C-alpha cells in the first residue's frame, strides 16, 4: 500500500481544496434561501467570501491567557473537516485512503475538539458555557454517526470507507430494517450534527452570544466560521454517501456532479428547517438526542443479527 502514498496525498489535498472553496458558497446559498423564506431580499450569494476576506484583515483580539492555544485551535478547527474530506475514497471510487471508518469518526470529533480548545483558551464564562454545551452535544451526537457507520460495516463486513459508502447500509437486500431505522434517526439528528437551528445551543446567539466564538475576531474568527461552513458540507456529503446511493456508475464528471447536487439538496433541507424552527433549550435537546441514541443502538443491534 506504500506505493499509494502519493495517490492518497494528491487526491486528499484535491478533495480538501474543493471543500474549502465550495463551503462559503453553500453558506451563501443558505443565507439567500433563509432570506427568501423570511420575505427579505438577502445578501448576494457570494457574500460569505467577502465576509471571510474582510475578517482576514481585521484586528485580531486575543483575550486568553494562552494566546498560542487560541491560534492553534483556529488552525485545527479548519483543518479537521478538511481532513475528513481528504479521507474520502473518491466519488464511487475504490481509491486507497489514509484510514477507515474509525479514523473518520475520530477526525469528525477533532473538529469539535478544536472548538472546545478555542472556547477554553478564550476562557470567558460565556465561552466556557458554550463549550460545556458543545461537549454534551458531541457526547450524544458523534456516536450516532459512528453507529451509522458501524451498521454499514456490519452489512458490508468491512470498515474501509469505499465499501461502506454507496448504500451498503441497506444491506444486500437493499432495504434492511437497521439501515432504514438509522436513516430515520440521522434525518432527525442531522440538524444538530451541523449545529443549525433548532439545535444551535453551542452558539445560541440570542442566549450566550456565540458561545465559544464570542471572544474571537479577525482571522481567527474567519477560520472558525470557515470551519463551520466546511463542516456543513462534509457532514451533508457524508449523509449522501451513506444513505443516498446511485449515480456512481455515470463516470468521472457526471458522478461527481450528481453527488454535488445531492449534497446541495441536503444542505437545502437543512436551511429550510433552520429557517422555520425555533431553538430548543439545551435540556430538551439532550433528552431528544438521548432518544435518538437509543434508537441508533437498537438499529445497530438489528444490524448485528443481520436485519
Amino acid at each position, binding site marked *: 500500500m506504500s506505493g499509494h502514498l502519493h495517490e492518497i496525498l494528491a487526491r486528499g489535498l484535491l478533495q480538501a481544496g474543493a471543500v474549502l472553496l465550495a463551503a462559503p458558497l453553500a453558506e451563501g446559498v443558505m443565507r439567500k434561501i433563509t432570506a427568501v423564506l423570511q420575505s427579505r431580499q438577502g445578501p448576494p450569494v457570494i457574500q460569505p467570501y467577502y465576509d471571510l476576506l474582510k475578517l482576514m484583515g481585521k484586528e485580531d483580539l486575543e483575550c486568553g491567557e494562552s494566546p498560542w492555544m487560541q491560534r492553534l485551535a483556529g*488552525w485545527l478547527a479548519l483543518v479537521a473537516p478538511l481532513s475528513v474530506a481528504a479521507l474520502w475514497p473518491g466519488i464511487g471510487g475504490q481509491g486507497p485512503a489514509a484510514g477507515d471508518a474509525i479514523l473518520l469518526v475520530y477526525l469528525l470529533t477533532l473538529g469539535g*475538539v478544536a472548538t472546545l480548545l478555542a472556547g477554553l483558551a478564550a*476562557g470567558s*464564562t460565556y465561552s466556557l458555557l458554550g463549550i460545556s454545551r458543545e461537549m454534551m452535544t458531541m457526547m450524544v451526537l458523534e456516536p450516532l454517526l459512528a453507529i451509522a457507520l458501524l451498521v454499514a460495516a456490519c452489512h458490508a463486513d468491512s470498515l474501509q470507507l469505499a465499501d461502506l459508502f454507496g448504500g451498503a447500509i441497506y444491506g444486500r437486500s437493499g432495504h434492511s430494517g437497521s439501515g432504514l431505522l438509522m436513516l430515520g434517526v440521522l434525518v432527525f439528528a442531522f440538524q444538530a450534527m451541523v449545529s443549525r437551528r433548532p439545535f444551535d445551543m453551542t452558539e445560541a446567539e440570542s442566549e450566550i452570544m456565540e458561545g465559544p466564538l464570542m471572544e474571537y475576531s479577525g*482571522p481567527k474568527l474567519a477560520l472558525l466560521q470557515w470551519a463551520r461552513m466546511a463542516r456543513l458540507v462534509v457532514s451533508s456529503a457524508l449523509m449522501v454517501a451513506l444513505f443516498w446511493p446511485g449515480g456512481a456508475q455515470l463516470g468521472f464528471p457526471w458522478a461527481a456532479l450528481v453527488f454535488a447536487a445531492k449534497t446541495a439538496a441536503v444542505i437545502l433541507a437543512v436551511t429550510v428547517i433552520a429557517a422555520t424552527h425555533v431553538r430548543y433549550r439545551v435540556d430538551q435537546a439532550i433528552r431528544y438526542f438521548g432518544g435518538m441514541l437509543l434508537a441508533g443502538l437498537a438499529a445497530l443491534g438489528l444490524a448485528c443479527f443481520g436485519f
Partner: protein
Amino acid sequence: MTTPEQAVLWAALLCGAGAIATLIPRSKRLSGGIAFLFMGVAGLLVWWAVARVLMNGPGEPETFVAYPAWGFALRLHVDGLSAVFLALVATVSPAAVFFSIRYLDHHSGYGPRRFYPYLLGFIGAMVAIVSTTDTMYFFFIFWQMMTLTSYALVRFEHRRPENVRAANQYLLMMQAACALTMLGALLLAPAGPVASAGGEPVMRFDFEALALQMPMLLREQRGVVTAALLLFLVGFGIKLGIWPFGQFWLPDAHPAAPSPVSALLSGVMIKTGIYGLIRYFLWLLPEHTGDDYPVAGWGAAMVVLGGITLFVGTMQALRQEQAKRLLAYSSMGQAGYLLFGLGVCLVLLPSAHPAAPSLAALALVGVLFHTLNHGLFKSLLFLGAGSVQRATGTLDLNRLGGLLARMPWTGAAALVAALAISGVPLLNGFASKWCLFVSAIAGGRCAPYLPWAGAVAILTSAVTLACFVKWYGMIFLARSHRRVPGAGADRLSIESPWTMRLPLLLLAAACVALGLWPALALDFVCQSLQESWQALGSGLGRAQPWAAAGITGIMMADGSAAYLPLALAAILAPLVIGAILLSRMGASARRAVSPWLCGYVREANEHRLQARHYYGEIHRHFRWLGGAPPPQPQPDAASGSEALPGSNPPPAPPDCSRP
C-alpha cells in the same frame, strides 16, 4: 552469559539494595539521587532481559531457591508476556523515580526515609511478580511486598485522616484479592510435585504443574475449574479495578498517594491484574479447551464486565472536581477497555470462522498495546498533576486555571497525554483503541453481539474526551483563579525544575512516537509473544493479527480496515500550513485584551464556571451511576479577601444601577 531470568532477579535485588541504601541519608535530594541510581541500573537490566527475549525468544524457566519438602521454589521465567509488562515497568518506573527527586520537596514534614525505600521495594516486587512461576508461596511473597510497600506509600501523608482511611481500604481489598487468587491456585494444584514436559520435577504450586493438571481436571472435575477461574477473575479483577470492585479502593487510594506513586499505581500496578487474567486464561487452559468447555462464555462475561467498567468508570470520572481523583476514575474506565479486549479475544478464540484466530490475536495485541499506552499517558497525567500541585498547592479543579502560560512545558506535555487518552488520531491512544474496536466490530462475523459492545466502547470514548477537556481546560486553560501564584502578573513563570519536566517530556515524546509509528509497538508485542504461545493461546501464535500498511501503519490481515498515520500526517501537515498562511494573509495586527462580559462588570472569580457546572444535563441523567465527588476543603470560603501576593484585586461589585 546472563539469562533474562538472572537479569530480572538482579534487577529486583538491586531495587531491594536501593531500598536499604536510601534508608541512610536524611537529605531528600541525596536520597532521591541514590534511588534513581539504583533504579536506573535495575531498569537497564530489565530492558536487557526484555531485549534478550525479543531477540532469542524466551529461554527455559530457572530455579533459584528450592525447598522440595515444603513444595517451595523460587522459579522465574521471562517469556513474551512477562517481557511486555517488564518493558512497561522499566519505562515508567525510572521516570517516576527521577521525577520524585525534586517533587518530594513540597511535602514538608514528611521525610524521604518513609518514601524511597518503599518506592524501590514496590518497583522490585512488580518486576518479580510478573516473572515468577510460583502461584502460591512466591506469588504471596511478591504480592505482599507489592501491597505493603504501596500501602505505606498511599499513607505517606499519614497526618491526613482521609489518606489513612484510603490506605486501609486499599490494603483490605488487596488482601482479599490475594486470598482469592491463591485459593484458585489451591483448587487447581496437584497433590505433589510432578514431572514437567522437560522431565524436570516441578513443585505442586508451580504454574507448569497447574497447567499439566488441567486436562485431567477439565475431564473429571469441571466445576473445580470453573470455580478457580471465577476466583481468578474476581481476584485479578479487584487489582485491575473492574466494576464493582475497583470503586471500593481505586478512587481513594490513587489520589491519596504522592503523584509519582499514583503514576506507578495507575500506570503499572493495576496492569498486573490484566497480566494475571491473560496468564491464567490463555496460558493455563490447554489448547482446544474451547471445543467442550465454554471459553467463549468467559469471554462474554469479560466483554460485559469490561463494557460496564469502561462506561461506569468514565461516567464517574466526568463528575469529579479534583484533578487526581478524576484521573483515578478514568483509570478504571481504561482498565475496562483492557478487560473488554481480553473478552473479545476469548470470545473469538474457539470460533470456527476462518478469520477468528487473526481477530482474536488482534484483540489481545490491542490489549497489550493499550496497556503500554495507558502506562505512558496515565503516568504522564499523574506526574503532570503532581507538578501542578507542587507549583500551586492545590488539585481542586475549581481553584486552578490558566497554567499553560505559566507552566508551558508541563502544559504541553499534559496536552499530549490528554489528547492521547481521548483517542485523537496520530497519538498512541488512537492506535491501540483502533485495534480493540476493529477486532470487536469485525468480530461480529463470529459473535453477533460484539459490534454492539464495540459501539458502547466508542460511545464511551466521547465521554473520555469530555473528561479530559474538563481536566485540561480547568487546569491549564480557561482563566486563572485568583489564588494561583502569579495570577494577574504577566506571565510569571511557576514552571517546575527541569528534573521534573524531563520525565514528562520523554513520556510525551513516547506517546507521539508510538502514535506516528504504531507498527513499532505492535511489532514489539508480536515479536515478544512469538515463541511464548502455549496452551489455549497457541492458536493465536499461528494467526497473523495484522499486516503492515504504508510505512508505519497497521491494517487488518484481510485488508478490510486500515490506519496509515504517516499518510494522515502527510495530509494534515500541508493543511495546517495552509490554515496558518490563510490566517496571516490579511497581515492583521494582534492585540491582547481582557474578555468581554457585556460591558457591565469586570471579570471576577465569582463568575468562573465551576467544575460541577460542566455537563450538567449529562450528570442529571446519570446520577444513579454514583461516584459523587467528596466535598472539597474550602480554605478561603470564610476569608474571601485573603489573597496571595500578586493576585487579582478583589472583584468590583457588579454595577446594578445601569440597565
